[in-house]
């Protein structure tokens, strides 16, 4: 790590590729992803860990990127919504959100899908209660959640390819 006016170098793996940024250590991972790496899928909703719109996977675990100082992501593997599709094919969960009407305004959708991805990896066949719990940290003001839960159930029935 080299200091440069209080900045430091942070090396991460982002969506499978090595990424190096020079940033202040207290910058939020969310801002570094969006501004320095051009990955604008993760959204800022509340900015205080209540809404889940900025959720990403860090070393396979769901986390709100608005609460992570970028230095704490040094050496970590980060996956954002941009890392789920394979070339021109949507991931099963993304397709299920399209098919079930799980996205309306779209602000919560990236975080919702990251939370659902994490859920299905741990529980490939979740009951409705487990789906609701897995998504309980992600707020949606459009759908009323029913279509989102349906999308996750649909993706689970298809089997998420990993």
């Amino acid at each position, binding site marked *: 790590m080299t200091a440069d006016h*209080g900045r430091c170098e942070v090396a991460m793996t982002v969506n499978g590729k090595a990424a190096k940024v020079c*940033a*202040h*250590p*207290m*910058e*939020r991972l969310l801002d570094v992803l969006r501004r320095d790496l051009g990955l604008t899928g993760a959204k800022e909703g509340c*900015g*205080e*860990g*209540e809404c*889940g719109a900025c*959720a990403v996977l860090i070393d396979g*675990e*769901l*986390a*709100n990127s*608005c*609460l*992570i*100082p970028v*230095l*704490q992501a*040094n050496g970590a593997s980060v996956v954002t919504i941009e890392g789920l599709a394979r070339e021109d094919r949507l991931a099963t969960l993304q397709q299920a959100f399209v098919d079930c009407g799980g996205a309306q305004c779209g602000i919560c959708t990236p975080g919702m899908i990251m*939370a659902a991805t*994490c*859920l299905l990896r741990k529980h490939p066949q979740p009951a409705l209660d487990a789906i609701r*719990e*897995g*998504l*309980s*940290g*992600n707020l949606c003001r459009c759908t009323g959640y029913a279509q989102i839960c349906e999308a996750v159930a649909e993706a689970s029935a298809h089997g998420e390819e990993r």
Partner: protein
Amino acid sequence: MRSDPEDYELVAPATLSAVLPLLAAEPGEWLPIAGGTDVMVQYAAGKLPARKLVSLWNLPELRHIEVSHDAIHIGAACTYTDLREHALIAQEFPLLAKAASWTGGIANQNRGTLGGNIVNASPAADSLPALLVYEAELILVSLRGERRLRYVDFHTGYKQTRLAPDELIRAISLPRQFAGYISYARKVGARNAQAIAKVCVAAAASLQRGLIADVRVAAGSVAPVPLRLRETERLLRGRAVDAVLVEQARRKAGEEVRPIDDIRSTAAYRSAVLGNLVAEFLIQLTAEQIA
């Protein structure tokens, strides 16, 4: 007003032994940050007074759970997810597992830590009543050495603790003496996930020949600190649970605390609900005894 990252310093030493000299050299200047679920919220709001932060996230010395024959030692930087996924905690300390499951959502459970919850010292914190019930002991560490402190003595007032400015919580130790206890936990809030409790209760009791042999009741959001309900416990100990006792305990619990009105609830509601939760605990106790 959002904080400017340039006004802050953050370092991430690789080991605990590299953190302690920082705290010792400038006591009170360095704010430890683990998963960031509280600190980063204050930071985002421009309300973080500390300018120097030291990361404890993923320090191996603070992130493991050690079981011995008479106690379990939980590293202070273990996350709620770590607690939820630990088989022995689920089995012998179900109140802690349950509290972990309703703290925040999954993302915050993956980052929020038990030590952070204790040091942040919110009277509404979900996991703290469980620690009171289980007679937790804190292992505090500084460059000066280690000391042990009963968790019940840790909080001295609203957001005030006995942690010295150069100290960290290294681990939380729970004695393995509650295996046969019947436990009860309930959080009353706008919703379980994310929402902060209006009232939360953790309780456990052991029964012998139909009488309450031992009982512990603790509550959050009803006082400036998480509280053991000693008077209610005294009333219950040695008694058989019947309708009369349930009503006496309901009243005693409601009278024993002096909650406040705030944005989440009112004092009157909190007292009434606390009484009702204690009553529900006792009714559940008799049901489990018959079953």
